[in-house]
């Protein structure tokens, strides 16, 4: 890993179009600005990792029977409160 020391207000550049600026330090927190082209996705690592984990769980949990059970329960719940879900009827019939 490349390790660089920077002062507040100084930058690091990666390639031609990614710029990382150290904005402020407050105790154990560091504020960083990232300038990157549109296609580059920038996230706090832990948030992204949790999304990855949820997506993996969703793909693994895709089994018919539990989804059918959940769908049945959900429909009963929606029937009890139909006025809040105007698109219920409409959505039932929309299929590809």
């Amino acid at each position, binding site marked *: 890993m490349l390790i660089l020391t920077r002062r507040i207000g100084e930058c690091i550049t990666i390639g031609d179009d990614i710029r990382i600026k150290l904005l402020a330090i407050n105790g154990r927190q560091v504020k960083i600005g990232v300038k990157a082209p549109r296609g580059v996705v920038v996230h706090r690592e832990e948030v992204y990792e949790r999304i990855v*984990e949820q997506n993996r769980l969703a*793909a693994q949990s895709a089994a018919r029977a*539990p989804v059918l059970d959940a*769908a049945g329960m959900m429909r009963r719940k929606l029937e009890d409160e139909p006025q809040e*879900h105007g698109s219920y009827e409409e959505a039932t019939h929309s299929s590809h």
Partner: protein
Amino acid sequence: MKKGRTMNTALLGEIQFDEDAILTIPEGLPGFEHYTRFVIVTLERFFPFQWLQSVEDANLSFPIIQPHFFCADYRPRLSPKVLEFLRLERSEEAEFYSITTIGPTPQEVTANLKAPLVVNPKARLGKQYILEGNSYSLRHPVLK
């Protein structure tokens, strides 16, 4: 003329769809970046759940649900960058889907409201967009 396709999926059996129903997610989903082409399969017996089925891998599918079925006031704000990426003028034109995790019992069915799948229905373009802030949960119980 529409070009029809048939696919034998692991979970849903044989499904049929038109080429122009294919939803392109150019970045893929986090953790599944290599899969960029999907169809949203609507089957009455699963309503209100739907399936995000990969057309590149018959074994890959995600249960999804539109958040308004369990979270009536869910109206996340999209950044101008995301609107541009999805070729949308306004947030109101977008469709939102939550990727759903099905636990061992129906009570443990949770939806990811923190990172909805945002779709431009006209352009058939999508992105799983991570919302800023802490207002929405990654594991919102659907049946509560």
